[in-house]
């Protein structure tokens, strides 16, 4: 629980309750076969997960959410014969294939800029990861992981890559997927077609490895690093990873030619300057088809780690994979956030995203669904600049501010503000 005290929790609880009573708050996502799912929630005020709950229909579920008004609401990806029985006796029928993309797992540059820690007792702002307060020596340092539009856009890029894999390689239809904003720093995607329902843990692990190129041996895709290349090298229109490798390698070569700094930096970790400069000339040769034979397989200098072919392939793979949370996808008993409910870490709606508007919708703009009224007086310890519902707030540091309810709830949920007296 991240509220600074009971008072803050009470206020947000009240705002959540009002929301679930409103008409929009009743538009909770209805998972298929609701009576076969396990539900769980985390209440305000206690750090426990109440689980093994079952509901016979949507009305019963909505009434419970309104009555309890939890901090977080979860539902199982799995279907069970007895959803409310203890874990070993539920009788697993099958589970949706679920994916969690979390900006926290992505190597974004902004993380360093906006994540921080602070000391609740003296208010000193500290570097993220500090264990003791530099101001008063207290051991109770609170970590704050911020989420900015850069984080969300990085997560969205991964989501789009994942969808490209699912649609093209696995032939999963858009109508068989539900995509949601997680309400905090990423996206959830659930596939519920019959094809995937019965896949066991091992099969799901294979899918994870496919999406992340884990344990890939490129010789099975027609590429060999040591021996001479075989005839059937991967080309742009090939199916599966073959085509992905070829297209991605061409992209890498084009970026090198355009002088893209990020790409050059990445390749310089593997190649000598000389080998990298040579690569600038290559992309025109690749315009018709993937000319793997134009990449050298010998290193130009002894101190470098790799040759041109290996380095380009390595970077091409890195760009192609979908960065998903492996553990979530492999877990066939996982509880995941129920879509169109409020996320207690932010007060934002974990909303279902329309498939064709993923690119356009900025979650911070659309999913701050709590009301503007009442305006709330806060003492903010520290907050970077942030934008919600189209308005820009902050940055704040140890100051008193007056904010609309949704923005106040956002800071209170993150534990960086407390209620101030009028």
């Amino acid at each position, binding site marked *: 629980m991240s509220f600074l005290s009971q008072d803050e929790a009470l206020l947000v609880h009240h705002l959540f309750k009002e929301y679930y009573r409103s008409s929009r708050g009743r538009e909770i996502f209805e998972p298929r076969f609701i009576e076969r799912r396990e539900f769980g929630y985390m209440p305000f005020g206690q750090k426990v997960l109440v689980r093994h709950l079952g509901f016979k229909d949507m009305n019963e579920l909505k009434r419970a959410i309104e009555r309890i008004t939890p901090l977080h609401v979860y539902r199982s990806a799995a279907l069970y014969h007895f959803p409310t029985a*203890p*874990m*070993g006796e539920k009788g697993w029928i099958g589970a949706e294939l679920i994916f969690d993309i979390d900006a926290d797992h992505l190597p974004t540059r902004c993380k360093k800029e906006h994540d921080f820690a602070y000391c609740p007792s003296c208010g000193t702002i500290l570097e993220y990861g500090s264990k003791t307060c530099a101001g008063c020596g207290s051991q109770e340092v609170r970590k704050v992981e911020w989420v900015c539009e850069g984080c969300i856009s990085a997560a969205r890029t991964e989501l789009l890559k994942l969808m490209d894999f699912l649609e*093209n*390689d*696995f*032939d*999963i239809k858009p109508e068989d997927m539900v995509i949601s904003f997680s309400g905090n720093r990423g996206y959830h995607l659930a596939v519920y077609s019959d*094809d*995937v329902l*019965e*896949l066991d843990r*091992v*099969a799901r*692990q*294979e*899918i994870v*490895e*496919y999406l992340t*190129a*884990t*344990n*890939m*041996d490129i010789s*099975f*895709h027609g590429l060999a690093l040591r021996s001479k290349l075989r005839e059937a090298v991967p080309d742009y229109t*090939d*199916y*599966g*990873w*073959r085509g992905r490798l070829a297209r991605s390698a061409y992209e890498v070569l084009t970026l090198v030619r355009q002088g893209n700094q990020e790409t050059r930096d990445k390749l310089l970790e593997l190649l000598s300057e000389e080998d990298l400069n040579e690569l600038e000339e290559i992309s025109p040769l690749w315009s018709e088809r993937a000319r793997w034979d134009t990449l050298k397989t010998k290193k130009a200098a002894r101190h470098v780690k790799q040759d041109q072919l290996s380095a380009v392939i390595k970077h091409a793979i890195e760009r192609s994979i979908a960065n998903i949370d*492996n553990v979530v996808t492999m877990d066939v008993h996982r509880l995941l956030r129920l879509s169109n409910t409020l996320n207690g870490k932010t007060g934002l709606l974990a909303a279902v995203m329309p498939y064709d508007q993923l690119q356009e919708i900025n979650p911070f703009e659309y999913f701050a669904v709590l009301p503007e009224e009442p305006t709330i007086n806060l003492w903010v310890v520290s907050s970077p600049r942030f934008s919600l519902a189209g308005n820009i707030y902050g940055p704040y540091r140890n100051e008193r501010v007056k904010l609309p309810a949704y923005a106040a709830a956002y800071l209170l949920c993150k534990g960086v503000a407390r209620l101030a007296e009028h």
Partner: protein
Amino acid sequence: MTVSDPYFIERLMMEFPFLQQIREYVGSFGIKLEDFADPSMRSLVDVAVKRVEDSLAHGIRAAEESSTSPSEVEIFSYPLSIALVAMLEDDYAIRRFAASEAERYAKILEKIDRSSVRDILHYVATQVLGMRVKLAQPPYEFEMHFADYLKHATRLNEPRWKLVNRTLKRGYVLLTRPEMATLIKNALETHIEERLRAVGRLGVPDFLKEHVQRLKQLLETRRWREVKLGERLAPELWPPCMQALKQRLLAGEAVSHFGNFTIAAFLINIGWTTDEIIQMYSQRGDFDERIARYQVEHIAGQRGSRTKYTVPRCATLQTHGLCIENGRLCGDVKSPMQYYRRQARRAAAGKRREEPEAQTKAENV
């Protein structure tokens, strides 16, 4: 010859007694278990018993000795073989029978002439096993839906079977003919196992009592030779990953939560008691008996969900970075327990060779 050819279907029925059609065909004669008691059925009973006996005694090697063109006797005796295996009420018997049967069909498929094998594989995959399989263009001859592929290919250990190393074309995995044959063999094995389990418990009629008794004895000797986990192996014989985990634990090095879970599950599965495991942990500086006991008992299934946890498979250990040298030292195994059992068998075989010698010496004294 094509799939619609009536002769083709008939031949297929003869060779694959578990086919839906043959079950209907045999069923149409209305044979019941009791009918086999009639002296005129003696030869059928003998064939059925022999089939089970061979599979138990020789496993997949039994397939080598089987004929390729079964007689009507063999076909009609097949349901009785199934019943006999069910009467043994033993999972090991089920697995062994299924494996040898699957091998037998694979051998038959190998001998079918090349021109028609493609159609037969396609027929067996789609009609018998219910897989979504399409015919494709060389060098690949088949495309199998990824969900069906994953059901069977995950049992195969070589890197080339990993999905990440396959070409996935709009939901279908591209396969060569030999690859398809291997997958079908695996799928047949699972299919036969499932059918055997579906039979459930069967009472043993008098006329079969003697046979069942004999098969049970055979099963016992077999089992004794297979695995004797009762005797514990010295840590030098453990799989490398477990040796490494134990060493790191004893050296007081940091071991991840998953690493702790893995070694505890392993020790429980090879027969260590909770106390012994805790004893080992107590040598660490950060040892807290209360927490350690709670966790170990949980893994052993004495607490919480009461599930006794199994040891993670090699692939999972690889994902968590606990596999040593990518299994190079382990030979072809899929899980640390498989490695351990193999070591146990070797140790037992070594002992048996030593024992008679020791006895002779004793007599001489």
